[in-house]
């Protein structure tokens, strides 16, 4: 039988890693009273990871608290990141790199000749050294980045190509093991029972699962996929053993710990479906919560649909994990503004 950790014991495992303060923590755990009332099911709460305070906020601000000292301590002097043109990771890494004065090169796929808007606009303002790849170049973006890295090495630099390393792939989960301790305190303060956390199927939820399992908590998890191209086994659930090792944990996550919902992707990542557009409007018009079209909007659509379809029981406390991504709202301004549906409560 596994011995459970106290939150203090779990905290001391996290505290062994070097860390710097970047995020505004704890992020609030708030009620969504009007959405709860509208849907007429379980009580709905929201974990405001959009309020971490780093360049429009978002969950990843937690990651960099560990990643930046790790990279700097190893003596690297420039970071290279390969991401899609509307990536939140691209933006937040830029902001975090600036906080330690680290040079930052951003190789963005499918970015040539795009409108400079949303995350891409913020990347520019943050002074990231941008390489905007066209469709053809994007086919071998990693090769492009590797060549940049080799050129920098030849010039005597010590570049850190993020995609070459393991630590950036587990650090987000570490950040969310920490978030699990935070959520536990907030759940206790508010005396919440039968906790069921729903969010984008990703590593943040995996970190929370590890926190809950290691402390012997009965939280349930639902992950919503937003992308046909990101394999669950080969990406999200890939690093369970690495996380266990990095934090010297007694347990780690397994696929069966998360209910995965894949029916809300619509036409694919980056395409705003009518259902997600409606969900964004419902959240905004019930509790003034703004969700983004790529990630949290899809998770919100899933939450709303699942409550209506009986996917949660009424005695659960549903916690919506708002992971941020807010600049993307403005990349989709035309489609959002063109929304014609009414979101008045159904009677």
């Amino acid at each position, binding site marked *: 039988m596994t011995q459970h950790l106290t939150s203090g014991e779990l905290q001391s495992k996290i505290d062994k890693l070097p860390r710097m303060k970047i995020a*505004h923590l704890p992020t609030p755990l708030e009620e969504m009273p*009007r959405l709860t009332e509208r849907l007429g099911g379980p009580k709905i709460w929201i974990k405001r990871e959009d*309020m971490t305070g780093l360049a429009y906020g978002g969950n990843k601000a937690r990651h960099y608290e560990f990643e930046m000292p790790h990279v700097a301590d190893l003596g690297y002097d420039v970071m290279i990141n390969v991401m899609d043109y509307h990536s939140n990771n691209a933006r937040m890494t830029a902001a975090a790199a*600036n906080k330690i*004065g680290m040079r930052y090169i951003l190789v963005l796929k499918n970015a040539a000749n795009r409108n*400079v808007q949303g995350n891409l606009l913020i990347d520019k303002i943050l002074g990231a050294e941008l390489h905007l790849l066209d469709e053809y170049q994007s086919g071998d973006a990693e090769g492009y980045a590797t060549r940049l890295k080799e050129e920098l090495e030849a010039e005597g630099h010590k570049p850190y190509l993020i995609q070459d390393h393991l630590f950036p792939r587990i650090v987000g989960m570490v950040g969310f093991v920490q978030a699990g301790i935070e959520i536990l305190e907030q759940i206790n303060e508010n005396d919440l029972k039968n906790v069921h956390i729903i969010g984008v199927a990703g590593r943040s939820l995996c970190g929370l699962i590890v926190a809950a399992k290691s402390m012997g908590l009965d939280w349930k998890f639902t992950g919503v996929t937003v992308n046909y191209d990101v394999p669950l086994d080969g990406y999200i659930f890939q690093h369970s053993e690495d996380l266990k090792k990095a934090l010297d944990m007694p347990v780690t996550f397994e696929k069966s710990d998360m209910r995965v919902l894949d029916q809300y992707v619509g036409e694919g990542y980056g395409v705003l479906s009518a259902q997600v557009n409606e969900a964004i409007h419902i959240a905004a018009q019930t*509790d*003034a919560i*703004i969700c983004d079209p790529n990630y949290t909007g899809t998770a919100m659509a899933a939450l709303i649909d699942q409550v209506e379809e009986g996917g949660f029981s009424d005695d659960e406390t549903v916690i919506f994990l708002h992971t941020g991504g807010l600049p993307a709202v403005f990349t989709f*301004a035309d489609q959002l503004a063109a929304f014609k549906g009414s979101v008045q409560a159904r009677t």
Partner: protein
Amino acid sequence: MTISKEHFRSELEKLPRFKLSQLNTPVEPLDRLQQALVDQGVDVPNRMLVKRDDVTGLAFGGNKGRHFEFEIARILDGGFDTVISINHYHSNQARFIAAGCVKAGLKYHIVSTDMVTAPIIGNLLLCKLMGAVIHRSPNEYGRQVADKIFREETAAGRKPYILPDDPFVDVMGMIGFIEAGLELEEQLIDLQIDGAVRFWGLTGRSIAGLRLYAKNRGLDWRATACQYSPGIIEDFHNATADRSKQVVEMFDLEQPLDIDDLQVLEDYRGPAYGEPDDRVIEAIQMVGKAEGLILDPNYTGKAMSGLIGELRAGRVDADETIVFIHSGGLPQLFAHADKFTD
């Protein structure tokens, strides 16, 4: 004779209030910006800090998340069910009203004036997401449009409320920042800041509220306010003095503000409201690069271009600690995307 913190607190507690924001907001160092200025050969003050009122958490955050806690409570107490406001295309206030109305279950009409064909993005997009009924109107007809909506809503049996008609709107910003003053007094002690403090912001009610708090507390808090649109400085001083008298009366304080209490700078306002000049773009990029901190082109970018400009000109007292008020406004950056395309 100074007014105690407890007095301010108990006066604030007398006001009806509807929770909208996550307070307190953090105060953070701007050490890296300070170093970037030193690297340019600029003499910098003792310390530079930022008050992060951009992270109040209500629909992209901002300082007005404070004020509307009081205003929304007043509207609810008055039994109104519909709010009508008249705001410029770029207005952040419009967004806060939208968010406050959503949370309070009120219907909201915004008469969005000027720039009637500009795209729905930034604040206006967020207003639309939050269900505001948007009426776009040239500036000169804004009032007439609002009056027409008022008549129609009244005829439909609703109880509408034209926001700018409420005199409380004139003072609520100052009141919100009296509370920010309470926060800051403790935060500056925690940060072990002693000596003179200068708050740096915009010609508005926020910095005036801080200054009013400090004056009545007997604190050596100085204040510089940068203009963000054309206007006669004397008019600002007069309006501020009038409003401060109202707050002194409401809060049973001793000293209103007079013309010497706020330094006003007109050099950084740019060509017009909503139009940033090159120095504003440079300031936004400089702060972004140095601190990973985002400012907006209409307000905080202008205030920061003022701070950088005055530092470069050697007009800031080296002994002071500067506290930059980041009042938010972040959605509207996306309405200015074209200013950053090289």
